């Protein structure tokens, strides 16, 4: 099974995990990383690599970050670009994205998992007035 690493500004990553586990129960092969104002970006890259090692059992890992172009994205980008067959980076992490991924992840390749996360994240945003 592919691993998942959530990387966010502040406590969003840990908060998202907490929220998702209320829905899916405890989530395995998942690590959370929080970026704080004082943090060094090179160290953030090291922390991401350590987290990836923990969750990647050989099938790769999906990296989810909160904001396109921001520091968590930049720190993951190098890893994702260097080993594109093993890691995928999806931005705009949200609860629909994470729960869908957790529910479906068994048996998926990294490419399939990233596609599911991407679609679920986008379709998870809606407006009530469009639905009635």
């Amino acid at each position, binding site marked *: 099974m592919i691993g998942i690493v959530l990387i966010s*500004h502040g406590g969003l990553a840990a908060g998202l995990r907490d929220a998702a586990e209320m829905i899916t129960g405890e989530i395995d092969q998942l690590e959370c990383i929080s970026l704080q*104002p*004082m*943090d*060094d*970006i090179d*160290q953030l890259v090291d922390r991401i690599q350590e987290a990836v090692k923990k969750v990647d059992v050989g099938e790769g890992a999906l990296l989810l970050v909160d*904001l*396109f*172009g*921001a*520091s968590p*994205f*930049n720190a993951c*980008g*190098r890893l994702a*670009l*260097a080993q594109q067959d093993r890691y995928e980076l999806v931005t705009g992490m949200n609860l629909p994205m994470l729960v869908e991924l957790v529910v479906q992840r068994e048996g998926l390749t990294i490419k399939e998992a990233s596609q599911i996360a991407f679609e679920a994240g986008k379709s998870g945003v809606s407006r009530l007035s469009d639905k009635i």
Partner: protein
Amino acid sequence: MPVTHIRMDNRLIHGQILVSWNSALNIDHLIVTNDKVAEDPMQVTLLKAVTPIGVKVSVLPIKECVEYCLSPEAEEENIFVITKFPEDGLALIENGLSIDTLNLGNQAFVRGAKKLSNSVYLTEEGVKALKKIHEKGINLTCRMLPKDSKSEFWPVIEKNFPE
């Protein structure tokens, strides 16, 4: 004056720049300048990948950044320059770029650095460069976000690093 803002920020282009500074200053050209970064093709690719709509991104060594900013091509632009360290800021000035203010964005904690704000930690080496900038009559500010105070930051640095 094509260069409207020079920011010294280890994180280079990131959320605060893309969201807050871009909307406050209407940037049309973001130039990241640091000799090492400009030599790293993967980092250049990543920096260019985050270009917001309507903003051009360049990654240049210090000398080329100054040359560009003084060129006729730059005259029509609203340029936001991001350097990595205070030493880069000083190098821009020493290579002929003129500006009245340099801003300290994020400077991460490194061994031996002293805390000046939640996101700015300075080393003795960095302070040496900032002192030279100050002695050239250039203002120093410490603004993580556009809403932060534009007040002169040198007295705070001096107080924390007495000679």
